[in-house]
């Protein structure tokens, strides 16, 4: 069992990590001067933009996430129960959809500026108006899409702090603000930092929204370099990616460390529910406004726009196409998510049985794809799959005697491989967190009652993890539905999914046609929001 565990982890981790490794391995290769050219021309800009974007998004998500989490957790004000989970809603909207929506709303010919001009009888040039397609626009859009990560982390941390430590603080004379500053925030800091680390990874990986906002970051630069008409384009793109990966690795390590000290899902001991602080009058409504703002900007307004556009115009070929794209998307995401849960369960269980530094390292490697920009990963997958096809062809020829075509390249297998490489981490982390909630003595009990390790897995762990497994399944499913660059680059010729269709229509400035697809993505994206709000509450409140 032990050597089996290590072997299993080794093989899976190697396969999952191969695309990233291939990209990293490109560092030393010759790029025919292209790399030097990039360094002297565009690289400083990429670095500047990426750093500015990351810093801005981190600051804004902290502001939105922590303030709202604290308010809904410890204060009572109108709409608190609704906002508590509504604050997760923006998760349903990928940043690129937000970018399409706000560009449409806020552009010169859009409803907002038109209305302003009519009301104040301004004309072009009379007034200043913020540009959506700019660095600051991208910062705001990404923050609105990503703050829920910080919100969830902070809220889970606040919920987990025992009510008694806050009550003790109050008996020692601290008011709400003092409790927050001197007790709650220091206790929650590791969790919040872990949430921010997640946000930063997403920011570095974001392609669609940043591209649409015309901000040159590493992610867009990599794709642009890749498409250069130069024989060294792939190498140079891979080298750019490798540089980005170094930053990502640092973030992953930091996040892992922090999570270890934060213990997101620790539920030992009995905790009383925090008694909420009633806010009065203006303060109460101010709290409502603070919490409602990100929900309105991040979810309600874009969704309303897409609903409006769908009703008004919609995709001309909507009905028949939706059926086909919906089926494609559903089948792809279904297979990918089931696969991710099975592999994640296997890996998580292997660690439980054999927790050595080696195994932990391999698991860390297998979980890195999530932080890697989809475009980078796609390049890695293309290289690995092409290499494998080459080997397979040689093998088949030597056995059968006749050559075959490419078996994997350009098939759904390559796409599914890409999805596993990128999203396995989601299910793996979720399942591992779930497993830590199961006392080791339960394993011992099952074993001394005659169950083998496999039986223990299926009779104890799987039934106990049912909710967690379902949640992991849904999260991966939705991530696949939303995933844009990897799908774009790896899909078999002619295969259309919702995200690809929406991207293509939006790129052609045919937003009203894209609206129905966008709406469908949002609807599917609502599923994990429901799951997550349930998980956060349940992991803290329900006890066995």
């Amino acid at each position: 069992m032990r050597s089996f565990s290590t072997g299993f982890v080794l093989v899976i981790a190697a396969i999952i990590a191969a695309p990233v490794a291939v990209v990293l391995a490109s560092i030393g290769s010759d790029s025919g001067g292209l790399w030097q050219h990039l360094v002297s021309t565009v690289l400083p800009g990429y670095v500047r933009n990426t750093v500015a974007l990351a810093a801005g998004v981190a600051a804004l998500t902290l502001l939105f996430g922590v303030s709202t989490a604290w308010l809904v957790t410890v204060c009572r004000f109108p709409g608190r129960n609704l906002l508590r989970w509504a604050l997760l809603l923006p998760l349903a909207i990928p940043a690129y959809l937000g970018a399409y929506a706000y560009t449409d709303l806020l552009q010169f010919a859009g409803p907002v500026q038109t209305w302003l001009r009519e009301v104040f009888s301004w004309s072009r040039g009379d007034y200043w108006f913020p540009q959506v397609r700019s660095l600051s626009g991208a910062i705001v859009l990404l923050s609105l899409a990503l703050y829920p990560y910080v919100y969830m982390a902070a809220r889970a941390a606040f919920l987990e702090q025992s009510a008694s430590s806050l009550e003790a603080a109050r008996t020692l004379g601290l008011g709400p603000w003092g409790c927050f500053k001197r007790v709650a925030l220091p206790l929650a800091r590791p969790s919040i930092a872990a949430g921010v680390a997640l946000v930063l990874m997403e920011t570095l990986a974001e392609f669609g929204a940043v591209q649409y906002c015309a901000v040159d970051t590493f992610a867009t630069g990599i794709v642009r370099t890749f498409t250069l008409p130069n024989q060294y384009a792939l190498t140079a793109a891979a080298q750019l990616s490798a540089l980005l990966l170094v930053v990502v690795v640092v973030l992953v390590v930091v996040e892992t460390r922090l999570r270890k000290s934060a213990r997101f899902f620790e539920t030992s001991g009995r905790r009383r529910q925090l008694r909420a602080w009633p806010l009065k009058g203006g303060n109460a409504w101010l709290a409502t406004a603070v919490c409602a703002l990100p929900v309105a900007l991040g979810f309600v307004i874009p969704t309303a726009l897409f609903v409006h556009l769908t009703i008004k115009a919609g995709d001309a070929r909507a009905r028949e196409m939706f059926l086909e794209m919906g089926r494609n998307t559903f089948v792809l995401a279904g297979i990918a998510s089931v696969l991710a849960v099975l592999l994640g369960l296997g890996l998580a269980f292997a660690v439980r049985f054999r927790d050595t530094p080696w195994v932990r390292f391999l698991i860390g490697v297998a979980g890195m794809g999530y932080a890697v920009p989809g475009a980078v990963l796609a390049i890695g997958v293309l290289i690995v799959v092409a290499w494998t096809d080459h080997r397979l062809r040689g093998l088949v020829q030597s056995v059968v005697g006749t050559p075959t075509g490419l078996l994997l390249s350009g098939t759904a297998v390559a796409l599914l491989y890409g999805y596993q490489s990128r999203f396995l981490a989601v299910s793996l982390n979720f399942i591992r967190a779930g497993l830590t909630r199961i006392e080791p003595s339960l394993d011992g009990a099952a074993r001394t009652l005659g169950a083998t390790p496999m039986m223990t897995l299926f009779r104890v762990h799987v039934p106990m993890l049912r909710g967690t497994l379902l949640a992991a399944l849904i999260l991966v499913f939705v991530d696949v539905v939303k995933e844009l660059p990897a799908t774009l680059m790896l899909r078999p010729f002619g295969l259309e999914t919702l995200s690809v269709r929406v991207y293509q229509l939006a790129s052609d400035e045919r937003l009203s046609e894209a609206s129905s697809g966008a709406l469908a993505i949002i609807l599917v994206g609502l599923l994990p929001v429901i799951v997550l709000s349930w998980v956060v509450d349940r992991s803290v409140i329900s006890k066995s």
Partner: protein
Amino acid sequence: MNEVSPALVVRGLCHQFGAVSVLSDVELTITATEVHCVLGPSGSGKSTLLRLVAGLEELQVGAIEIAGQAVAGPGIASQPPEARPVGFVFQDYALFPHLNVLSNVTFGMAQSQRARRDRKSRAVELLAEVDMADFADAMPHTLSGGQQQRVALARALARRPAVMLLDEPFSGLDGRLRAEVRERTVDVLRSSGIATVIVTHDPREALLVGDRVTVLDAGRVLQTGTPEEIYRHSVSLEVAEVFGSVNSFTARVAGGRVDLPIGEIGTAGFEDGAAVQVLVRADDLRLEEDGDDGVIVGLEPHQGATTVEVELDQGVVVRALELSRAGWRIGTRVGVVATDGAAIVTASKSNQVMLDR
């Protein structure tokens, strides 16, 4: 009676966690139907011993035999826990939270051997034995600690193990409930006739419950014996002190006895000139109001008794446990007499003879 192989034999067991040795050279033999208590402070390695027997911990050095079958040892493929005929009751009971009480109890019953209905009726029988028949459909989290403990017991018994292993089974309970549950548990175990090892840190519990007791400290077996032997004939000061305050003296045997500040004590079995250590429990020292051996220097009242510290004229301070509430006062002179036959005489470890206390 015909020869029955012991339920459990542990030989030369050593175990380390990293560089820390938790068990060294542990020997243990549990006869069939015996209830055996392993007594030791936390960190003495007693839980590790149980886990090794159950196979939850990989054996490093030594050999383990259960019901005449070698389950782990040199040259033997170590049997996994599921293959060993043991029942284990965990300190936190470890009931499966996703299964109700009945399903917890049937969990370990062989799937193939028994029809579903048979399994159920056997489980109900077991639950009735631990007075939990009414809770068959309850979920574990709705039960109190004592109830969970009883379900865990029934669940472990369901496989009819050769040895039952209980890891601090009563430590999660308090006060009267603890005594009740303990009594009931031991009754059930005794009537089942299954050899049992109970690990505990409570000396009184060990003496009360065990047919025999093994005293463990820092991974070593200090003594194994009946409660009477352990208490009355402790092999060392360390063992004696586990059960309360002890006065210790060292002296040289002369004429079959030693002369101590508390009087003369017989030392049968020791040659003249041998250095011996004499242990007298505080509750075996009696104070006499009209005596004149020393002066009271300290009083330490506890429930129903008082520990009185007396400084003898030779300069030694002894402790005596007095049940009477007689007006002992600091500064009073009293006589000190040891109860006949209560002194424990052991060979002195150091050859140097001096008054310890």
